[in-house]
């Protein structure tokens, strides 16, 4: 690090300085430390509200991974986050800010449900692949809607992808409140249950379904594409320097549309596996915000496929453990606060891996 010359125009007392070479030790240490800091803060709060923090944390850990059941449920929660997170990450790599994973997720549930409800007689070996394709296709096409204006006219995709979320959610709501409503469902916004053939196989009596395999395969394929293929090279180069990529003769417009399709297709697949693996029917509010959480997951994982698998699992544990803690009397609001504190600290700590804090006059810019 170069020492700047003494600057007499009062440099700020505290300043940020970019790390030129983010150290791997820091990269691991900071997130871990952040979690502990968050738990520490939570412990103070818990102690003041009359709970034993250690006991609460122990319950949380136990609920999330301490039993076969809890562990399997954590995976169940992680599956949609993995798939949607992978989808978000591939777009982010090209600096395409796809905030629309939630909507693409819903369109995926729509596509898969359409197959399951329209052709209930199909045998599973046709049904499941058809639902798979329909889910990916609907999610992918939904992402193409904002991708095309972005590619052709540079229309900001942050706004368009976000807005299309509401459209997709309302579309599914229309279906479950209207034409697809189960006539036996007492007017509740649910479709009829899918046929057995339209449900994903599960693992050993748990609710862990084939979606886990989809997610792991997707992560593996994605990293092969990104680091072993020409197209992946193009995506990464475009993300780092679009004008250089264009100068090198890469077709950026085509890549924008293809990458957004892939991004949406993965979120759609998340929707398909949730509807075919867990709920076995389409219903109002089928996603408790997986598409948005996926954005945080992708960032925390630094867009790396393997990291996304891991971070999704941690998030799943946070959610499942959160409910478990409630049985020991901790209110839901306190649990949400704990979860948010952990996120806040980890995201906040992120900045320390990229910048260093300078205290004192020597800092300067």
């Amino acid at each position, binding site marked *: 690090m170069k020492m700047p010359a003494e600057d007499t125009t009062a440099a700020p007392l505290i300043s940020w300085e970019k790390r030129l070479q983010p150290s791997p030790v820091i990269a691991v240490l900071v997130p871990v430390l952040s979690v502990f800091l968050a738990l520490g803060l939570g412990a103070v709060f818990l102690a003041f509200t009359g709970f034993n923090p250690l006991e609460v944390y122990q319950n949380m850990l136990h609920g999330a*991974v301490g039993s*076969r*059941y809890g562990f399997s449920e954590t995976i169940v929660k992680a599956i949609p986050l993995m798939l949607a997170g992978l989808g978000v990450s591939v777009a982010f790599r090209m600096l395409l800010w796809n905030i629309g994973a939630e909507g693409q997720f819903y369109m995926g549930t729509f596509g898969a449900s359409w197959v399951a409800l329209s052709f209930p007689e199909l045998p599973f070996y046709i049904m499941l692949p058809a639902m798979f394709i329909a889910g990916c296709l609907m999610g992918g096409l939904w992402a193409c809607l904002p991708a095309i204006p972005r590619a052709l006219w540079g229309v900001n995709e942050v706004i368009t992808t976000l807005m299309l979320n509401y459209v997709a959610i309302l579309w599914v709501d229309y279906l479950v409140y209207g034409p697809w409503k189960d006539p036996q469902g*007492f*007017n509740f*916004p649910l479709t009829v249950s899918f046929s057995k053939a339209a449900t994903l196989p599960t693992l050993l009596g748990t609710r862990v379904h084939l979606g886990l395999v989809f997610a792991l395969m997707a992560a593996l394929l994605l*990293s092969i594409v990104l680091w072993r293929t020409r197209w992946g090279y193009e995506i990464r180069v475009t993300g780092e320097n679009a004008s250089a990529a264009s100068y090198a003769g890469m077709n950026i417009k085509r890549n924008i549309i293809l990458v957004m399709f892939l991004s949406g297709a993965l979120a759609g697949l998340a929707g398909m596996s949730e509807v075919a693996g867990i709920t076995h029917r389409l219903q109002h509010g089928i996603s408790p915000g997986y598409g948005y959480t996926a954005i945080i997951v992708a960032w925390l994982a630094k867009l790396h496929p*393997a990291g996304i698998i891991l971070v999704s699992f941690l998030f799943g544990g946070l959610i499942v453990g959160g409910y*478990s803690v409630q049985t020991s009397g901790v209110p*839901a609001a306190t649990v949400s606060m704990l979860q948010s504190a952990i996120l806040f600290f980890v995201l906040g700590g992120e900045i320390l891996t990229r910048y260093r804090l300078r205290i004192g006059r020597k800092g300067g810019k």
Partner: protein
Amino acid sequence: MKKGWRVLLILILVLAVAVAAAGCGGQEAAEDGNGENQTAAGEGAQDEKMKVGFIFVGPVGDLGWSWTHNEGRKYLEEQLPWVETSYVESVPEGADAERVLTELAEAGNKVIFATSFGYMDYVIKVAEKYPDIVFMHCSGYKTAANADTYFGAMEEPRYLSGMVAGKMTKSNILGYVAAYPIPEVIRGINAFTLGARSVNPEAEVRVVWTQTWYDPAAEKQAAISLLDAGADVIAQHQDTPGPQQAAQERGAYAIGYNCDMREFAPDASLTAPIWNWGPYYTRVVEAVKNGTWQVEEYYGNMKDGIVDLGPYNDIVSQEIRDLVDAKKQEIIDGKFHVFQGPIKDQNGEIRVEEGQQMTHEEILNIDWFVEGVIGSPS
């Protein structure tokens, strides 16, 4: 970039070891669990408590639906010192419910109360796996050998609250903020409308659906839209005092729901049809303890006290109170039935003939609005 995968692999291995360790621990615990009856009996002879679990759709602090059930839970714990309760709040009516129910079952609860309609399928599913645990599902229609339903004739106090609203309105437009178009809610709107029109044939009831049980802002907004449309009394089938507050701010009147809501809208809230679950919960748990529990599809009424009309606001005149109280007595004495003919639907067609009354089955499945309701029941 292979490094990332290597790190993941190591982490997975570490995790696997940790889980295996925890799993073994869990196994032991489970084995203990199998003999738990003996160990618990041996160890916990001094305080062997029966565990009872609750699962709520909203936060217990909603001051509405979940709050009333939580009051019932507290009452149960006070009445039966040998009972230990726990609860999980804000559980969505989806895939999460199945896990929470399973966890409550695994935690050793002998009775589990699931207090929202959307838990129904999950209750039945989990009840199958735990035949020794009694599952009580509020407001549903599916039962099993160890799973029963319970609910109350909220239409009775709703009718009475409609009478109060019908007497107090000046514009003859009553607003009704309603959650979902399901029979429970439609039933309430019908009872309210019948009550209002029994004392004021000019009154009409306008319905706005919010598609949510618990959303203070959305409920308040819906109430404001009704007030804008000319309503001067706002009734609600929602779990927060949001609609009451909207009425308070506009100087209009309101009818609460679930519990007495006058505290939140001292000038507006006239009265409220209320729930009182405690005595029922106590009866169920005692029956389970004594081995006399059986599936009965309980549907309590004002006579049982599970539903009631809350206290009146001071601005409700003695004349109105006398009128309403007299009707209440008639209902309790079985002399008056809320859904007794003649009842016309929105199209003016007679649906219940004079001298007839709707059957329990018909009341539970009702999907049409009575005359005087403006809105669509779907």
